[in-house]
């Protein structure tokens, strides 16, 4: 590197700085593009729910949990994450179809991911976490709690059963349940 005078040093550094700023701008654009064009955005729906009244809310009463298909054919899976279990412990979803996961916590912070997919969100008491996804692979996927929530955290996991579209048969009330393995 040229370094005969201080001026030379600064000129070299300036050239490098321009290169750095250009590549950083490029990276930003790539992320922007992913966000705007492919709708790769994190879950941020800002919907609140009183954690002490989760089980009383019409949406998250026990009888409404799991997967349900509404009149418009939209598939929504509702899950309560509580120390130290998922309710229900297994959910069934169709492959190759948009699915909305809605999760709430009545107690502490939890988080979920589904192995082998991009499904990932925190579940913070006070808020409804919502994730839209399309499951591509069929089979039993692991859905663990990925945020430390107390001594039983390691035992807190559940199953997402992805079945081919043709085998996904909700009952007359629109609910679909995991058959026992």
């Amino acid at each position, binding site marked *: 590197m040229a370094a005969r005078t201080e001026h030379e040093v600064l000129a070299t550094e300036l050239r490098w700085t321009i290169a750095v700023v250009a590549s950083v701008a490029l990276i930003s654009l790539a992320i922007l593009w992913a966000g705007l064009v492919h709708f790769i955005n994190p879950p941020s729906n800002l919907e609140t729910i009183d954690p002490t009244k989760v089980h009383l809310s019409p949406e998250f009463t026990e009888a409404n949990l799991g997967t349900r298909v509404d009149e418009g054919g939209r598939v929504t899976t509702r899950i309560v994450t509580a120390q130290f279990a998922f309710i229900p412990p297994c959910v069934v979803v169709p492959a190759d179809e948009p699915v909305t996961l809605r999760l709430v916590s009545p107690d502490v912070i939890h988080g979920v*991911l589904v192995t082998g997919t991009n499904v990932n969100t925190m579940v913070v008491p006070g808020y409804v976490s919502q994730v839209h996804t399309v499951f591509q692979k069929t089979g039993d996927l692991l859905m663990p709690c990925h945020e430390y929530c107390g001594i039983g*955290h390691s035992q807190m996991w559940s199953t997402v059963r992805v079945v081919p579209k043709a085998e996904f048969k909700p009952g007359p009330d629109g609910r679909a349940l995991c058959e026992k393995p």
Partner: protein
Amino acid sequence: MKSLERLTLAHLWTAFIAFAVACVFGLWQMLARSPIPTPGFTPSNYFISVTAHGAAMAYVLTTFFIMGFGYFTAETALQRPLPGKRIAWAAFGVGLLGVVMAVVPVLLGRASVLYTFYPPLTGSAWFYIGLVLVVASSWVWCAIMIVAMRQWKRANPGRPVPLAMYATVANAILWLWTTVGVTVELVFQVIPAALGLVDTVDVGLSRTLFSWTLHAIVYFWLFPAYIAFYTMAPEAAGGRLYSDTMGRLSFILFVLYSLPVGMHHLFMDPEHSTGFKFVQMTLTVLVTVPTLLTIFTISASMEFAGRLRGGKGLFGWIGALPWERPMVLATGLAFFMLWFGGGGGLINMSYGMNAMVHNTSWVTAHFHLIFGGTVVIMYFAIAYAIWPQLTGREAPSLRAQRIQLWLWAIGMMVMTLPWHYLGLQGQWRRVAQFDYANPIIAAWGSWVVVSVAGGAMLLASALLFIWNLAAFHRARTPVQAPFRFALAIHPPERVPASLNGFGLWNALVAVLMLVAYGYPIAQFFIHDRPVAVVHRVDGAQP
């Protein structure tokens, strides 16, 4: 021994003893997560261990190391006595008391909330109060650093503050800003809950306040490594720093851009809108700028040194560098780990890809590589460089130091490469034990065992490090040359006032923080957000 040396040694030994003990815990955790049977395993012991390991590494090693190194730098770089040594000792006492207050409840299993203590989980109040004392003690350090620089400037009007000290004060200022978030969270939310004064917590607010601290704290840890790159490595390599001005600019950029970006830790959280996540992500991309500038300036300095030593051609200067010197070797190894770690960081920060890795082993592996690898290996190199001055003796064996550094870098790669891979496979973090009977998890087993082997190498290296430092105290050869910081090829005669102080930059940080965090924090007061009920982990009745 002189008083500065005693003060520095007290801090650094506290840091390194906590570090070595935490490494023992770390290897035990590695075993627990693996298919190998582990002595003393219970889930409760695991979370005691992770809380102790995480807090010791993140809060004790770093804070005490940075304080000790800062005191040393202030006196050595400014070449005048450190002001307020008595106060510094008192602060050290408060910090040490804080560590004891925090460690005891952790080991008793009454504060297994991990080092991030996400409420509404709540442990013993002693744990949090102890941590606040450690922070308070570091604030005293910040004040002493600022006063030392002021006094020097008054005695040397118009002259540029030596780069090592300028960087140290930059870190002190960064740290004052950084600790606001976590301290407010602890004092106004967590400690009242732990004392039973309140029984609910606004979790969205507490997560937001913690995120304020969570990114910038990493740069606080990183600063000593960068100080060593700029002001120690070029001298050790037999050359000079390529550009002093670039050093100043990089340190200023760190102060500016490591603060308004903490919300990238909340990408997967439901309590913030996409808009603010996006703003902070954009600012996050900018923090890569000072690191890229540093890589260039330090590589140029090394090239300069290599050519002085007769290196020829495009890459010949690399071979000509004195790799047998621990500081040069550590810098090379740190850069090597930085390439891998930096690549991983790009993935974490991009807002969409984050979903693939959030809270998986990828993240744990990433910060072990960057923080445990790049940063801590420079802590080792700094210790080796200043211990002769601190003890007045030369090292009995540079070879043992080199072996230790190699062992750390190789161990870190062996531990973290499979760990990254497992994260991509969906292995999640903070788990005491995996069910290896599950076919998905069973497939991970052999990679977990490889990373255990890496952990064992790291523990061996940590113990050798302690041995190497102890060897100075037993050595007989008196120190040959006094320690000094590297000079630039063209040392600046004068620098603009903005590159010699922090007034302007503090004002800019305030503006950036207002933009980045103003509404995200205010929303919890404007809108009525639900609160969560405190969940105690220590069995205490409210």
